[in-house]
């Protein structure tokens, strides 16, 4: 998807008007291994840019999730409560995590696919 953008902390965003969908990247899920649980905020919560909003727990680690934009949580992917493995099997589709209503502008440092690829290649070494 052309308009998908990324953060250095391995979240992705897709922007549709004021609505921002957030997930974790394919690289992130492959590094984490089998995801067994996600701790997610409730809808309505306001998140600052780069605020820690939850935890993704895999069989080998627990990692914080950071908000890629500032905004208000409008939806949480309920399917992940029962099927957290969707984050592994379909990180850019059914494995989405949150929808936010954007507050202000998009941060300037979101990465495009090529730039994010450089980040993952650098961290793979």
């Amino acid at each position, binding site marked *: 998807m052309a308009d998908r953008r990324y953060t250095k902390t391995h979240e992705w965003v897709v922007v549709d008007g004021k609505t921002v969908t957030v997930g974790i990247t394919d690289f992130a899920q492959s590094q984490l291994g089998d995801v*067994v649980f996600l701790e997610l905020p409730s809808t309505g919560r306001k998140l600052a840019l780069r605020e820690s909003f939850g935890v993704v727990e895999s069989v080998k*680690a627990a990692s914080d999730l950071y908000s890629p934009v500032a905004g208000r949580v409008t939806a949480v992917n309920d399917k992940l409560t029962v099927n957290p493995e969707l984050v592994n099997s379909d990180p850019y589709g059914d494995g989405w995590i949150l929808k936010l209503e954007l507050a202000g502008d998009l941060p300037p440092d979101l990465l495009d696919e090529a730039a994010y690829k450089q980040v993952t290649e650098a961290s793979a070494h």
Partner: protein
Amino acid sequence: MPYLVHSEEDRASMLESIGVQSMDDLLVDIPQSLRIGSLDLPDGLSEYETMSQIASLAARNRVFPDRLTFRGGGVYRRFIPAAVAAVTSKPEFYTAYTPYQPEASQGTLQAIFEFQTLIAELTALDVANASLYDGATAVAEAAMMAHIHTGRNEVMVSGYLHPEYVEVLRAFCDGRGIKVRKGTEPGPKTAAVIFQQPDFLGLLVDAKTLTENAHAAGALAIACVDPISLAILSPPGEYGADIAVGEGQQLGLSPSYGGPHVGFISCRRELVRRLPGRLIGIAHDKQGRRGFVLALSAREQHIRREKASSNICTNHSLCALAASVYMTYMGPKGLRQVAEVSFKRAHVLAERLAALPGWEPAFPDRQFVNEFPMRVPKASAVVRKLARKGILGPIEVQRWFRELKGVVTFTCTEVNDARALDELLAALEA
């Protein structure tokens, strides 16, 4: 027989290989002014001499028999069936330290799993951990769970929670910037309402209302409970408490000068990822064989680091095992009998004490299980007088609570037989 593992030659060879002349050379960084010249220690003793000396020191202890002990306050004399020690003294349990390859120690894990199951059943909550150190730290750990779960920075202590538990709670909260407030009206900043049932004085509190008020304010309700009393009282899960904690000493452990004992903690399923400490689950392998395994490890500090709700890494596992054996051996019926006998004896005692001139129940309208407060003339004199007659009398609670001047709390359990009650009354009337 040498008691020190290193001989003079060993030491000389070690000093030589690191290139120093003497042990003192290892201490050059410590200024002379901070060093002790020599210790004034007596000469060594033979084993026999040592034992004699210790025995004569021990003989100076004042030991009150269980049946003539009427003091509780969080630690209680109860009958401990021989089955408890028979199991806990098995070397497989007794000598093993925390297994660091846990799945290799199926017996240990099964014992922990059973402890968890028993505590969850007793408190009527979904899940219990492998145990904590004692009742005090269990209260504090529960408060940390509530703080992280709600994101709020205040915990409210309602009513007479054990004052030493409150001290430990404060110690935990200070470091995390959490306020400990006493009161009964939780607000929007309150993470949890903590109450004790029965309370420190032995009195029953309105646990249901306290729980409902906590929930109405968006706070969690933490019930600190007496495990034996749960055989006859409504358990925390039944009145809606989110977390139950308590001291498990009464479940097969001797008072032992105040420890080691065992704390327990259980909670609703939704809070399990905030639960501190080790958690054992059951899994099945590909062939369908049962195995006991560490469950939800990613909650724990070694993985979640500073985001974990607790940095507790261990527990008093042998004490937890004793509690498991006790509960299993007694069964629901046995526990109920213990609770009922204690209840009856305590109520007989309360009635007899109230008939003494000048004595009266401190809270005549309140109910109790097996510990109760009396208002008495000259509380300190009463305690001293009883001690002279070989009876460990009540606790003077004004030591912690100024408003309770002249109030003492008596405790009765199944070990205080009818004759012991007569002896107590005779001593007080004399």
